[in-house]
C-alpha cells in the first residue's frame, strides 16, 4: 500500500473504525484506568489475538478449531520457559538440592536441565519459538487433517482431542513442565522487572501495538484475493477445488496464521500475568476463546477484539460484584447475546447502528462506497495489489 492511499484509507469508514479502536486502547483506557485495571485490560487483549485468529479460521474459512488454547498455551509456555530460566539463577535457587534449575524440577528430583529447555536461555530463539512452535504444530495437524480432507465437525473434535492430550502431557510430565501448578514466579525479562506498575504499563502498550500488527495482517489477508478464496471455500469447497485451487493448502495456511496469532497472545499473557499453567491449554479455555469470537461477531476481526474485551471485563466485573452468582449471570449473558444477535456484536452493529450512520453521512455515501468497505463487506478493488494475484496463482498452481 503506498502512502497516499494509506492516508486516504484513514478517511474511509473502515479506517475510522480502526482509529476509534486505537483511540480507545491507546488514549482513553490508559487515561481513565489505574495501573491495576489497565494491566487487566492487557490480559483481556491477549485473548483478542486468539479471537482474531478464530475469525480468520472459523468466520472466514469455516474451519472451527476448538483447540486454539493449544497454540495460546505453547506460545505462553515458550515465554514462560525463558523467564523461568532467567529467574532460576544459581544464587536465587541456592536452597535447592540442584541450584540453577527451575524450582519445580528440583521438587521432582531432576538434577539437570532437560535438553529441550536448553535453547530457551536465548531470547532470540524464544521469540522465534513463540511463533514457530505453534505454527509447526498447526502445520502438522493441518497437513495430516486437511490433505486427507478431514473437515467440519471431525476437525473440531480432533482439535479438542489434541488440546486434551497436550493438557494431560503437561500435567503428567510435571518435572519438565511444572504440572498443574504451571510455571510460576516469573520475575524479570532480560533484567527488566515485569512486576512493577511501569512495566505493566509498558507491556500493555506493547500488547496493543502487537494487536494492531495482527489486525493489519488479518485485514490484509481478508481483503486480498486470498481472503476471497477462503470465503469461497467456506461456502462451496468443492467448487473452489474444481476451479483448480489446492483447498488443503489454503486451509493449512489460515490455520497456521491463527496459531501464530494465538502464540503471540499467549506470550503476552505470560508477560502480563506473570505465569503460565495448563488451564489455558485445555478444552474449557479453548471453548471460552471461541465464545469471545462468537460474541464479538465471528465475521469481523474488530468485533473479535471487542468481544474478547467485553466478555472478560464482564467476567471480572460480575465476579467481583456477585462472588456467588456470577457464573449464572455470565451464562445468561451468553445465552441472551447468542439468541438475540446470532452474529454477535458486529452483527448487532451492522443491523442497527450502521443504517443510522448511513443516514447521517448520506452526503459522503458515494465517496465511501467507492473506496472502502465495512468490516464485514467485500473488499474493494482499490486495495488489491498488483503483484499479489500472480503470486497467488503461482502458489496454487505449484501446489495442485
Amino acid at each position, binding site marked *: 500500500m503506498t502512502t497516499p492511499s494509506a492516508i486516504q484509507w484513514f478517511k474511509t469508514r473502515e479506517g475510522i473504525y480502526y482509529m476509534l479502536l486505537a483511540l480507545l486502547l491507546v488514549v482513553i483506557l490508559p487515561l481513565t484506568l*489505574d495501573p*491495576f485495571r489497565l494491566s*487487566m485490560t492487557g*490480559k483481556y487483549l491477549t485473548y483478542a489475538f486468539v479471537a482474531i485468529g478464530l475469525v480468520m479460521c472459523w468466520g472466514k474459512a469455516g474451519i472451527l478449531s476448538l483447540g486454539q488454547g493449544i497454540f495460546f498455551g505453547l506460545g505462553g509456555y515458550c515465554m514462560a520457559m525463558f523467564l523461568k530460566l532467567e529467574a532460576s539463577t544459581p544464587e536465587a535457587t541456592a*536452597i535447592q*538440592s540442584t541450584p540453577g534449575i527451575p524450582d*519445580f524440577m*528440583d*521438587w*521432582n*528430583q531432576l538434577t539437570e536441565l532437560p535438553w529441550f529447555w536448553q535453547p530457551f536461555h536465548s531470547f532470540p530463539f524464544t521469540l522465534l519459538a513463540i511463533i514457530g512452535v505453534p505454527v509447526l504444530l498447526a502445520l502438522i495437524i493441518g497437513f495430516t487433517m486437511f490433505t486427507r480432507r478431514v473437515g467440519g465437525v471431525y476437525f473440531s473434535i480432533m482439535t479438542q482431542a489434541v488440546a486434551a492430550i497436550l493438557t*494431560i502431557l503437561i*500435567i*503428567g510430565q*510435571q518435572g519438565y513442565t511444572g*504440572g*498443574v*501448578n*504451571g510455571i*510460576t*514466579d*516469573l*520475575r524479570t525479562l532480560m533484567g527488566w522487572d515485569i*512486576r512493577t506498575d511501569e512495566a505493566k504499563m509498558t507491556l500493555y502498550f506493547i500488547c496493543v501495538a502487537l494487536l494492531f500488527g495482527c489486525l493489519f495482517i488479518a485485514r490484509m489477508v481478508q481483503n486480498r484475493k486470498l481472503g476471497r478464496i477462503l470465503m469461497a471455500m467456506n461456502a462451496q469447497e468443492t467448487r473452489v477445488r474444481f476451479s483448480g485451487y489446492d483447498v488443503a493448502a489454503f486451509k493449512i495456511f489460515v490455520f497456521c496464521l491463527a496459531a501464530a496469532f494465538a502464540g503471540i497472545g499467549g506470550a503476552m499473557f505470560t508477560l502480563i*500475568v*506473570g*505465569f503460565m*499453567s495448563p*488451564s*489455558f491449554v485445555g478444552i474449557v479455555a479453548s471453548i471460552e476463546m471461541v465464545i469471545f469470537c462468537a460474541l464479538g461477531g465471528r465475521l469481523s476481526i474488530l468485533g473479535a477484539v471487542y468481544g474478547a474485551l467485553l466478555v472478560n471485563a464482564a467476567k*471480572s466485573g460480575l*465476579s*467481583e460484584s456477585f*462472588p*456467588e452468582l*456470577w*457464573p449464572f449471570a455470565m451464562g445468561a449473558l451468553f445465552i441472551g447475546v447468542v439468541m438475540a444477535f446470532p452474529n454477535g456484536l458486529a452483527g448487532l452493529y451492522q443491523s442497527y447502528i450502521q443504517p443510522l450512520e448511513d443516514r447521517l453521512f448520506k452526503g459522503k455515501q458515494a465517496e465511501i462506497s467507492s473506496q472502502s468497505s465495512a468490516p464485514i463487506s467485500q473488499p474493494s478493488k482499490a486495495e488489491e495489489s498488483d503483484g499479489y494475484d500472480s503470486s497467488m496463482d503461482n502458489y496454487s498452481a505449484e501446489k495442485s
Partner: protein
Amino acid sequence: MKMHKQSKKGGANGRWGLGKLKLLAASMVLAATANAATPPTSQVNTTGLAVTDDTVTVGILHSITGTMSISEIGSVQAEKLAIKQINEAGGVLGRQIKYVQEDGASDWPTFAEKSRKLLRQDKVAAVFGCWTSASRKAVLPVFEQLNGMLYYPTFYEGLEQSPNVIYTGQEATQQILAAIDWAVKEKGAKSFYLLGSDYIWPRTSNKIARKHIEKLGLTVSGEEYYPLGHTQFNSVINKIKLKKPDVIFAIVVGGSNVAFYKQLQAAGIDPTKEKPMVLTISVTEDEIRGIGGENVEGIYASMKYFQSLDNENNKAFVAAFKKEYGDDMVIGDVTQAAYLGPWLWKMAVEKAGSFDIDKIREVSPGIEFTGAPEGYVRIHENHHLWSKGRIGLAMADGQYKLVHETEELMEPDPFPEGYQ
C-alpha cells in the same frame, strides 16, 4: 470542637502507645492484655492499609464456584465464623473486622488477579485464602511483591517458606512421618504400596514416604499415579492384590476417591479387615461426605484434626459452627486450619501493636493459640505450625474415631533433610 477533642485524644494515646511499644519489647504478655484500648490509626497503620479508627478490612479468597468449591466452602465458613467471634469479643486493637470476599473460581490466574485486587485496591490488612497448591503458587509472587500476608489453611507438600505466608495446615512431613511411624509401631506394617493423584502434592508426599520407609528398612512394593479425575483403578487394585502389601498408602484427591474406594470394596479389599490396611492423608470428613461413609469405613487417616476430637475448645467450635451453618455440616482438617487463620492474625496484630505487615511478620513466630479446636498450636520460625499428629479410624457415619495422637507437638520441617 470534635476534631480538636479527637486529636487531643490521639496525642495522648500516642504517648501512651509509645510507652506501650517499649513495654512490648520487655513483655509480650502486657501487650496482649492491653488490647482493650484503641490506639490511633496513624500509629497502628503506617503503610496505608484499610484500617480506620473503628474498622479493619481483611480479604477472603477462595473458590466458591468451580470444581474446588466443594472443598473450599468449608474454609470460607470457618474464616467467617472466626471473624464473627473475634468481632463479638471486641475486635482487633479495638477495631471491628470487615471482610472483602473474592471468588478464585477454581482458576489459578483468577486467584492471582483477585489477590492483586485485594492487596492493591482494597488494601486489606491480611488475606485468608487459597486451597490448592496451584492457587497458592499463583498468588505467591503477588503477595511477595506487594507485601501482603496470606494465611493458608491446607495441608500441603512443603518445600516452601515465604515471609508473606503463614501456613496453618500441616506440611507433608508432619502428616506422613506420623502416619508411617504409627503403622509400623502399632500395626507391625512391613510393606507399603504408594499411590496417588498425579500432581505435586501426592508425588512429593510419596517421595517423603518412600524415603522414610526405606530408612526404616522396610519395603515399598509399588508406587503409582493417576490423573486428576481418574476413575478406573482396577489395574492398580489387581497389582495390589498380587503384591499383598501390609499398607495401601493412598493420596487420591477429589472425585477419584469415590471410584477408588468403591472399586477397592468391589475387588474384595475390605478396609475393616486387618490386612491390607488403607492409610490416607487426603480424605477428611468433608471428602467422606462425597464418598459415602459406608465406602470408607475402616480406613485410617493421618491429620492433625478430626471433628470428633474430645476437648473443650473443639466442642465449643463444633457447636458454634453447627449453630451458624446448620446441623448437617461436617468439619474437616482444613476447615479447622482455616479457622485458626483469623485468630493467629489477631494475636499477631495485638502482639505487634500494629497492623503493619512487617511487624506482624516479625512477631508471628512464637505465637501460641491455646483456644485452637485441635488443642494447642504455636507458630514456628518457618511460618508453619507446631501441631500434633493424629490418626483417625473412619466410621460408617462419616466421622473419624481418634486412635492415636503423638505425645509431643511435631516440628514443621518444610525442607526435610535427607528426604529430597
